[in-house]
């Protein structure tokens, strides 16, 4: 029984070894291929690969993911022989991804992010007898099914003939950028080191020759989306503000009138109560507003509002009216409360308050006479004064209105000459 178990174990080990031997035999068609595979196996070892056969016998350069021990396909060999550039059997290469760190190691497929700078370090060991001069490194994305078909070539980095003496090693860093627009798909990545030996023969040795899959990295914060949301919020706020403004503008007039009437009442309450004792202000039953209720009438001098009391067509000319106004201060403001009275006193400070008031009332009476309406009861002295002024006024109007014939002009001139003494006397009395 024990012998049987031992023999079974023996057979298993033999099979194990046979498969391994087959693997190396299949890969070792030519010395250089064997060495390249050896180099790849080295890199596999460098990546801590397990020593389990993974069906590499069937693999003949098809570039399956994770398999570093690819043999060059027939096309690749053709290309290399055409260019006469291949690896040297005295050189052993291995690689390590610096960014993204740990890519392509055991247990992880080689996934590269798009839109990033990929950094890879290559390690070269000179096992020969002469110095090698390392010139350049280049990389390419190829079609995974056919590694001779190049999709994208990456820039060549020059190392300026760095010397690697026999028995020594050297490290080289190569970096390239994956385009962010490359969709998530798989490519065949080749990273090659170009060097020459002491005789000047050039070699192109693949440090990486495997299939990689590109993925789009997950960005944490997308500025574009963030500001787009801010823009939409502001647009919505603007729309709301616009609707509110439209509603406010086109509400019915009643609401507005009520608002303004309330405002007018609250602000002018004291003023109105002060004026009510005077009794001069007319009672505007709209509360200080226009009949339509659209605007406030409180600030307009009353003489413009009392249309009934406006002068008839036989109004004076502006020149006469101006002279009249100079003589009789405060003609304009009659029914306005005390503020207007104060203003009139400011204009002619030499006149007393009472005389100014008297003049006002006199003017009122004269205007009333001209207009044909007015209060009935008046003191006699005022009438006398008014008649004097009205006489002057009539003469002025006579002068203005005449002009139909030369005789009338002469008569008018004479009348004016007569009024001159009256005017001067009045001014002296003032």
């Amino acid at each position, binding site marked *: 029984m024990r012998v049987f178990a031992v023999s079974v174990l023996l057979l298993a*080990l*033999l099979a194990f070894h046979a498969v391994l031997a087959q693997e190396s035999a299949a890969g070792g068609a030519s010395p250089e291929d064997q060495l390249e595979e050896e180099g790849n196996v080295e890199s596999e070892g*460098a990546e*801590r690969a397990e020593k389990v056969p993974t069906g590499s016998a069937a693999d003949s350069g098809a570039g399956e993911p994770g398999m570093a021990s690819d043999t060059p396909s027939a096309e690749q060999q053709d290309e290399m022989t055409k260019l006469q550039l291949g690896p040297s059997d005295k050189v052993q290469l291995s690689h390590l991804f610096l960014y993204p760190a740990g890519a392509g190691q055991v247990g992880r497929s080689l996934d590269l992010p798009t839109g990033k700078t990929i950094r890879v370090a290559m*390690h070269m060991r000179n096992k020969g007898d002469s110095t090698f001069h390392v010139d350049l490194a280049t990389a390419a994305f190829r079609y995974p099914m056919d590694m001779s078909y190049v999709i994208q070539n990456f820039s060549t980095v020059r190392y300026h003939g760095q010397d690697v003496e026999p028995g020594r*090693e*050297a490290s080289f860093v190569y970096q390239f950028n994956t385009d962010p627009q490359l969709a998530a798909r798989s490519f065949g990545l080749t990273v090659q080191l170009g060097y020459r030996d002491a005789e000047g023969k050039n070699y192109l040795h693949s440090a990486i020759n495997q299939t990689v899959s590109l993925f789009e990295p997950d960005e944490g914060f997308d500025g574009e989306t963030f500001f787009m949301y801010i823009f939409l919020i502001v647009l919505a706020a603007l729309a709301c503000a616009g609707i509110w403004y439209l509603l406010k503008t086109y509400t019915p007039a009643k609401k507005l009138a009520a608002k303004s009437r309330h405002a007018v009442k609250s602000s002018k309450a004291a003023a109105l109560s002060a004026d009510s004792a005077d009794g001069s202000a007319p009672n505007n039953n709209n509360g200080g507003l226009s009949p339509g209720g659209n605007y406030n009438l409180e600030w307009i001098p009353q003489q413009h509002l009392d249309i009934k009391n406006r002068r008839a067509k036989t109004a004076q000319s502006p020149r006469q009216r101006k002279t009249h106004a100079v003589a009789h201060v405060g003609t304009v403001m009659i029914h306005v409360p005390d503020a207007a009275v104060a203003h009139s006193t400011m204009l002619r400070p030499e006149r007393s308050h009472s005389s100014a008031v008297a003049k006002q009332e006199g003017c009122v009476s004269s205007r009333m006479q001209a207009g044909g309406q007015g209060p009935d009861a008046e003191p006699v002295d005022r009438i006398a004064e008014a008649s004097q002024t009205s006489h002057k006024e009539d003469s002025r109007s006579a002068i203005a209105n005449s002009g139909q014939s030369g005789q009338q002009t002469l008569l008018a001139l004479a009348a004016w000459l007569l009024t001159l003494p009256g005017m001067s006397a009045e001014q002296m009395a003032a």
Partner: protein
Amino acid sequence: AMSQLTACAFLIGLVIFTCGAAADSDGGAQLIGVKSIANNLIVKGMDVTVQYDIYNVGDKAAMNVQLEEDGFPIDYFAVRSGFQHVRWTRLPPGANVSHTLILTPLQTFVFNASHAVMRYKVSDEATGSTVGYTTSPGEIAVIETADYDRQFSAHAMDWLTFGMMTTPSIIIPFLLWYASVRKYSNLASHSSRKNN
């Protein structure tokens, strides 16, 4: 029993042979050394940070790892911090170490930063040391301090001078406006007091 013993011996031999066949031909440590300069700008009189990263991508631990940096001449660079000759006893497989060297350029020149040298033993039982070269950063240009300041300094004195020169254009109209505002606001308050 004797046949069993021979069978066992053969078994053990086969195992060892298998392991040996599947293993790498060299089977030792492999060190990748990356030397990089961390600065974006290298300015005379300001610190330059040189960073060394050593990765062990081999199967075995590297023993007696030495890093020797002789590429910065003493009359061109002054060492501020860090060592130019470093030694690690052991670097396990799959591990990496970092070392930083801080220098100050003493002159303005274009400098070719070359590689540093690593020496290590590929395994415990290895006889001699393996010499490896790190990567080379390449040509670096040291720029003048004045050029750097023109771009990056705070320009405090410049701003102060600018402020002093623009103050009259702002202060004079403001004073005029302020005087006018005060005069007319006083007038308004006087007149409103009189009217009331």
